[in-house]
């Protein structure tokens, strides 16, 4: 079988991703489109690895208003790795709308298979289809599927593996071919896109690639067209109207629609409450509150179990291999470091479970509806809610999700404030510090630790909104702000899709954080186990203590502490300690803080490694190690309330994620914004932590 590359195209909420999951299962990999940073998931068919499927972002038409739409246009028109065919996924209940985008892709001359998805739902609502008529109108195979049950997917696979893809009938082919676009310069279409790109060079800088692909003739053709927006808008509207007129005729021939659907009736009943001017906000607040309570309460048992398992494993390895370098490296360095990442899997999974449920059920669109007015006051858009909420999972896809915001000013502000939202990488830091410093008691029937966690999430939200309000005063734009947004019907999320999303995100978390902490743990262990003349110094110190007749267990602890302080890492830690001392941090915390500037989730792993080195083996968990850590001078607990709160504030406000900075750089096409972000957020974190430490210290 020859290698085939097939694009998956369709409107948002058409069940495209469910089809993709059914087709590829776990044989998926996530990457970026070449040169840009929009998430691209590709995979291969089961048993047919030669067939590659690429899931493109959902969109409504090929006249791009936002960057994610521009990506699809660019992929179809200018990609060097051409697609052999496209599987077009249409929502059976909205076939008329689906045919608009289909007609544009068809006119590009892309061979296609037309999939009418969510048939089960449509048939129950009373939709009836004339398949033969639809096939003859479109000129391509038509396959009915229900991605929820998997029905029809085998027929789709069978058609895809035939590798003999049909060219669709043209709608307006004479004006609209890919060859025209590439070779002669399809001036109407591209000049319209070009005009939009020109409005904002910063946000739509990849226009250059589109124009470049046209060659000199195409570029000349573009330049000959007057860059007049009203002219272009008129051309676009005329084109869309012509298409809609033709599509309405086709739709009337091929589908019988009911007056109302069952999904709409259920949706309207639910929306009376969920979009209610009072109850809507109360329910939204309640959902957020429940999520953060659940994240803390439900994950406690599996986290404790994992923590205990890793501690026991360290013990077994140390007792098996003794005090050899390898045994100590694994028991004191690698295992504590890795466990500092892995034990947070239950919390990360729960967070992605809830975010996934909110998105897949259709509820997130209701939040956009409820929040738009409030968001405008801060210079944001209702659509900013989606990246901000996604930022609670991870800032990287959240920053990329800002591409759906059409207004460049609102988009830029959303990008800049999204990293304030409490991401999953902050969760391990919060969880461990709360567990150490906040008692696990009930207040008014609610878990106090969960309440503190909820407060930290609120702090992230307030910081983002406050930051947006300030930026709103400085960022200028003449572009019109508007909100046009579909409210999809409510659907019960598909368990397989949610679980696959959790699996993919947890895998990314473990891989991204795990590989950093693995290298870091080895480096930290060596730096903490060796130092200049360390053995001689330690021996001399031990002799001095022995002469003072100090009790053996105290002597051992003091020798271990001396050894660590005089190791390479101790020397570095002591050098940076004065910078962080005003915030209440000793040199060990300072080291953990510095290492976590690359990725904040390695903080716990670093601390776990540092506190494991030189200790006699004990089955203490990470939490217990931090709880038992004391200041050698004052004898007070190192992680007291003031220090823990100071650290929490620091991590809530600081920009400690190199990947996010890189994404901001690529999305804004400028180094200025990420550098400003890093400096301002770090300064805020430092002075915020300083204030909290002195207020509670």
């Amino acid at each position, binding site marked *: 079988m020859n290698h085939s590359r097939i694009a998956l195209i369709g409107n948002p909420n058409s069940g495209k991703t469910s089809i993709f999951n059914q087709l590829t299962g776990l044989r998926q990999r996530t990457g970026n489109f070449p040169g840009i940073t929009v998430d691209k998931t590709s995979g291969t068919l089961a048993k047919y690895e030669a067939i590659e499927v690429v899931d493109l972002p959902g969109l*409504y038409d090929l006249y791009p208003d936002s960057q994610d739409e521009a990506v699809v246009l660019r992929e179809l028109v200018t990609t060097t790795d051409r697609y052999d065919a496209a599987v077009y996924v249409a929502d059976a209940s909205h076939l008329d709308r689906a045919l608009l985008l289909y007609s544009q892709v068809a006119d590009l001359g892309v061979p296609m298979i037309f999939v009418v998805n969510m048939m089960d739902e449509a048939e129950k609502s009373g939709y009836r289809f004339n398949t033969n008529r639809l096939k003859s109108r479109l000129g391509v195979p038509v396959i009915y599927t229900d991605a929820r049950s998997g029905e029809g997917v085998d027929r789709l696979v069978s058609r895809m593996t035939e590798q003999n893809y049909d060219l669709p009938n043209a709608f307006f082919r004479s004006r609209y071919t890919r060859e025209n676009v590439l070779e002669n310069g399809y001036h109407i279409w591209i000049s319209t896109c070009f005009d939009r790109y020109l409005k904002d060079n910063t946000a739509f800088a990849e226009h250059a690639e589109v124009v470049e692909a046209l060659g000199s003739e195409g570029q000349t053709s573009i330049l000959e067209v007057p860059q007049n927006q009203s002219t272009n808008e008129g051309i676009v*509207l005329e084109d869309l109207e012509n298409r809609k007129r033709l599509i309405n005729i086709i739709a009337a021939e091929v589908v019988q629609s009911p007056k109302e659907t069952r999904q709409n009736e259920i949706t309207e009943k639910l929306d009376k409450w969920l979009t209610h001017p*009072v109850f809507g906000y109360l329910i939204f607040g309640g959902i957020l509150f429940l999520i953060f309570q659940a994240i803390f309460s439900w994950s406690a048992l599996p986290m404790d179990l994992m923590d205990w398992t890793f501690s026991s494993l360290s013990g077994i390895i140390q007792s098996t291999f003794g005090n050899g370098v390898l045994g100590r490296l694994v028991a004191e360095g690698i295992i504590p470091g890795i466990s500092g990442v892995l034990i947070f899997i239950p919390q990360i999974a729960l967070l992605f479970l809830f975010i996934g449920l909110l998105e897949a059920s259709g509820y997130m669109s209701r939040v956009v509806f409820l929040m738009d007015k409030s968001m405008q006051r801060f210079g944001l858009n209702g659509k900013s809610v989606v990246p901000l909420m996604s930022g609670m999972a991870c800032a990287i896809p959240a920053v990329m999700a800002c591409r759906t915001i059409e207004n460049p000013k609102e988009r830029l502000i959303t990008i800049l404030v999204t990293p304030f939202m409490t991401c999953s990488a902050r969760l391990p830091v919060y969880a461990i510090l709360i567990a150490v410093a906040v008692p696990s008691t009930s207040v008014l029937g609610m878990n106090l630790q969960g309440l503190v966690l909820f407060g930290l999430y609120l702090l992230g939200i307030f910081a983002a909104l406050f930051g947006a309000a300030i930026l709103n005063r400085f960022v200028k734009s003449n572009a019109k702000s508007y909100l046009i947004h579909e*409210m999809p019907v409510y659907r019960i999320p598909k368990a397989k899709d949610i679980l696959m999303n959790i699996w993919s995100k947890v895998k990314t978390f473990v891989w991204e954080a795990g590989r950093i902490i693995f290298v870091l743990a080895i480096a930290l262990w060596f730096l903490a186990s060796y130092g200049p003349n360390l053995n001689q110094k330690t021996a001399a110190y031990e002799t001095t203590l022995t002469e003072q007749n100090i009790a053996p267990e105290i002597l051992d602890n003091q020798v271990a502490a001396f050894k660590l302080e005089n190791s390479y890492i101790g020397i570095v830690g002591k050098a940076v300690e004065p910078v962080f001392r005003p915030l209440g941090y000793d040199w060990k915390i300072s080291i953990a803080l510095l290492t976590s500037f690359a990725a904040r989730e390695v903080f716990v792993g670093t601390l776990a490694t540092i506190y494991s080195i030189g200790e006699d083996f004990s089955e203490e968990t990470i939490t217990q190690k931090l709880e038992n850590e004391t200041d050698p001078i004052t004898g007070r607990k190192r992680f007291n309330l003031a220090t823990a709160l100071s650290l929490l504030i620091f991590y809530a406000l600081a920009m400690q994620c190199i990947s996010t900075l890189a994404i901001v750089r690529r999305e804004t096409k400028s180094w200025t914004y990420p550098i400003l972000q890093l400096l301002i957020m770090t300064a805020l974190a430092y002075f915020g932590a300083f204030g909290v430490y002195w207020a509670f210290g």
Partner: protein
Amino acid sequence: MRIRDGELTKQLMTLGLDFSAPVEMKYKAPFGGPVCIKNNKKFIVIRSSEAQEIAIASL
């Protein structure tokens, strides 16, 4: 029904607004927030200011 703003027209058209079918006002967000309209079995959210751009030519 006619819509004055070209960008708005384009967006509504691609979201599936059927210009021959009646538009039904469904929900209003508080404090002058967006409104949700229903047209041809689709729910679409637009701001109040944008809703005013939609002129009803005839019913």
